[in-house]
């Protein structure tokens, strides 16, 4: 391959740049591709933590990052889902667990049978039929041997952001990636892209492909970012003592001016208080946080929360990933999900020819679609909130949503079904658990469900609940799992 991509510069800092450099190096160093990471040394937001969705566990295998490393160096705990509390107004909470929403039965998704039974008066919530949810709530994790339910139980991580960035950096060093400090690098245009960047110390770095997580390089080629509705514009990050025992899920509690996320780490509880500055003044926010938590915590000052994204993350020979591609929705583990998908897609579409990269169009299409569907998943929480009479939440419910999300909500409300588009990043059962959790009980069900007799259906429900209970019993505790992983 005489015209292949041989020199790659990754430009940025933190988790995104390290992950991109590592992924590209592990995939293409074997083909002689040289990766240099220009570390902009971006300062970490104090107290920051990350929610890694289950998809990241697969990606870690490609990166060569094992469980023990995460547990030892990133205060990792296991993430089986997210609990949403108070989104319907009262104290109600539900769990978006990463697993099957009940077991399919009589050739139909479980939700159809559940909808039918709800109409007949059943009071049991959908998540009670979900093994992952039941296990997470009882502090059990892992895969039961000889499972009675055969339901999927997937898990991601809760990670200390600074620790995670450090371990990724260590992995880059181990992979012999050259890391140069380079804040303030100046991009130098050449043709339709960049031909080099000039570092502050005078070094000039030429490359065939630039991966930008910082945003300076892509901005030199394409100014445009598209704003999307922000759900909140401020965030306060804080830390509280660790929970004991450690929960297997994070908790997202609605607040009159936004929401409060608590992420359980091994050595502390990371807190994110996102709020809308029109509803809560910055000056009052720390007190509001302390009041919501019932005590004062170690907190950083309010920081802005961005909401813009680039319609074209790949322009010329510069690919923006992570923060440079755009702000991720502030919930549902979207930040790491989009980062990982952005990097994985780049590895898959690795350009053939350094002189012309038509891959950019495919990549931009894929990522725009993925970003839109991921944004829909988060937008549903706001659309479906039932906190009436609060300015912030009434406006959140009335805010416009994409046609795709509107169709998804309409169809689920009408029939418990899922309108599947290209680029979906969340599985059908996740949507079902969240929509049902937010209080949407479908108005009707697939008539094929009626072929099951009432009594047979009740017997099947009881069987599934027993199977969930026995599988939960056969799983291990969170503490045992972490101890085993630490090795």
């Amino acid at each position: 391959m005489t015209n292949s991509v041989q020199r790659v510069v990754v430009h940025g800092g933190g988790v995104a740049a390290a992950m991109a450099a590592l992924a590209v190096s592990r995939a293409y160093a074997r083909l002689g591709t040289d990766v240099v990471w220009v570390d902009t040394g971006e300062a970490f937001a104090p107290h920051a933590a990350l929610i890694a969705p289950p998809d990241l566990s697969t990606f870690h295998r490609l990166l060569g990052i094992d469980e023990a490393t995460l547990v030892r160096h990133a205060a990792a705990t296991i993430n089986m889902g997210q609990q949403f509390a108070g989104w319907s107004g009262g104290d109600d909470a539900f769990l978006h667990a990463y697993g099957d929403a009940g077991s399919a039965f009589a050739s139909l998704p479980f939700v159809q049978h559940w909808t039918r039974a709800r109409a007949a008066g059943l009071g049991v919530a959908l998540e009670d039929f979900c093994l992952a949810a039941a296990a997470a709530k009882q502090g059990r994790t892992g895969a039961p041997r000889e499972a009675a339910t055969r339901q999927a139980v997937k898990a991601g991580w809760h990670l200390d952001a600074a620790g995670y960035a450090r371990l990724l950096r260590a992995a880059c060093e181990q992979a012999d990636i050259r890391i140069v400090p380079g804040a303030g690098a100046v991009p130098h245009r050449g043709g339709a892209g960049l031909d080099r960047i000039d570092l502050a110390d005078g070094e000039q770095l030429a490359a065939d492909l630039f991966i930008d997580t910082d945003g300076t390089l892509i901005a030199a080629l394409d100014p445009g970012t598209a704003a999307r509705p922000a759900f909140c514009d401020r965030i306060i990050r804080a830390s509280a003592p660790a929970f004991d025992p450690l929960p297997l899920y994070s908790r997202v509690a609605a607040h009159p001016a936004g929401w409060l996320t608590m992420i359980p780490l091994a050595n502390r509880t990371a807190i994110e208080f996102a709020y809308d500055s029109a509803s809560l003044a910055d000056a009052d926010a720390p007190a509001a946080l302390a009041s919501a938590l019932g005590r004062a915590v170690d907190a950083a000052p309010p920081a802005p929360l961005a909401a813009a994204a680039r319609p074209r993350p790949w322009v010329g020979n510069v690919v923006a990933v992570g923060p440079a591609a755009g702000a991720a929705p502030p919930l549902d583990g979207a930040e790491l999900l989009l980062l990982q998908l952005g990097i994985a897609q780049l590895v898959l579409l690795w350009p053939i020819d350094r002189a012309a990269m038509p891959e950019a169009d495919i990549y931009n299409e894929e990522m725009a679609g993925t970003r839109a569907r991921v944004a829909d998943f988060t937008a549903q929480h706001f659309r479906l909130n039932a906190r009436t009479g609060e300015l912030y939440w009434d406006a959140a419910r009335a805010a416009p949503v994409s046609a795709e999300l509107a169709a998804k909500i309409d169809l689920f409300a009408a029939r418990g079904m899922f309108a599947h588009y290209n680029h979906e990043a969340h599985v059908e059962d996740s949507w079902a658990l969240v929509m049902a959790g937010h209080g949407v009980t479908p108005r009707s069900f697939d008539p094929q469900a009626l072929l099951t007799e009432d009594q047979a259906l009740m017997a099947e429900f009881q069987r599934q609940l027993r199977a969930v209970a026995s599988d939960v019993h056969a799983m291990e505790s969170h503490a045992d799992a972490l101890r085993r992983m630490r090795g």
Partner: protein
Amino acid sequence: MGDKFEIVIVGGGTAGWMCAAACAAKLDPARFRVRLVESEEIGTVGVGEATLPQMKDFNDFLGLDEAEFMQATQATFKLGIEFINWGRQGDRYVHPFGTFGRPIGEADFFSYWIRAHRAGTAASLSDYCFPIVAALQNRFMLPSGDANDVRNAFAYAYQFDAFLYARYLRQWAEARGIERVEGRIVEVEQDGGTGDIAAVKLASGARIAGDLFVDCSGFRGLLMAQTLGVGIEDWSHWLPCDSAAAVPSARSADFHPYTRSTRRTAGWQWRIPLQHRTGNGYVYSGADISDDEAAATLLANLDGEAMAEPRVLRFKACKREKAWAHNCIAMGLASGFLEPLESTSIYLVQMAIMHMLTLLPSGPGIDPALPAELNRVMDVEYDRIRDFLILHYIANEPDAPLWERVTTMAVPDTLADKIDRFRHRGHVQAYRDGLFGPPSWQAVFVGQGIEPQAADRLADVLPAATVEERLASLAATIADAAATAPSHADFIARYCPAPAP
């Protein structure tokens, strides 16, 4: 009786009886009443029909016995479609119901093939596909069931007499409670307020009322078009064939487990082997050849004696703007038409039925989210097949006026991008819903002469000699495996011999 949800299927062709049979299998008779109105006077369009592997899913969904169904419909097995003279005169390729190759390293098999092909060390793509190798030797077997066996990496479909299939399903559905109403519809009654269809009236004076109507009345779209006025999206500027001459011929010794499509001056000719005869047809553009000349061309290109005079059919490539409007769902020819080049007609009926069942209203008053979803998914199905069919037309030698026109026409943007991306690096987007999967696009692109200029870089990780060795060994394994399969004729004679008609 009064509380039941009443479904009235209008038209008893293949589409109508497939729909009726699915209702019989999946709807609770205590809650749904299903009637099918048809007239013996109106003949069905019963030419030899080729299908896709999803057809087996449909029969399994109903619970039909495969051997019994095949005997009743003179059915044969189908492993793919052979295309002759497509691309260039003398070329031939097969679009198989299976994948190419098996996993080798981190990249997909096709990327390794591109790499070796460009290096001149690969055999033809077909040699890495078990169903193609077996089919071209007129052999057939059922998938072996062993995931590690190349003889498991395929699916199969059927070729059958659609008229006999409708008859078989009619008897099956009637035995399960579907009411057949004989009669010619002379009037369709609409609700004065909503415009919904209230009832159909028969020549006998009978009035058949219903909550939901299924329009299986064929091209004319008695309910959807003539009554509700739902128009079509005309696609004939991309797919200009508008006629077909069809004729059965005597079964020939060459008993293929596949359908054949041969490109001709003004269109293409199909060959569909059934147990008792062979179905043939010439799909043509009326602007490029007269009916008489088309019929003569067809008769001159049969491999068995013609068993009737050629029958002429007229159509237009199109999609109904909505498959579900008011309280009426159109399926089959009433919902649109795409020429049978990729055997998609029955598949589209099947998809409409499956979506109808899951989205069926539970009582009077239709939740608008239900038709919206059915229309959305049917649009996706139609649009994808349309692009795939156009692909066959655009990549050919411009060796006749029709082929000059179609090879220089503007294609849908969705397709233009697909072609550029495939040429650049063999890229095919995989989507979850709808036809066709990456192996189908790969087969047709390469078969029509559109070859990738490069492969995924991940395919470069293995040494060239390793790739070459793995490819050679795979081709040998497939050749050996194919030799173990019985002949298609023997397999049919043992498994599902149909009585002489």
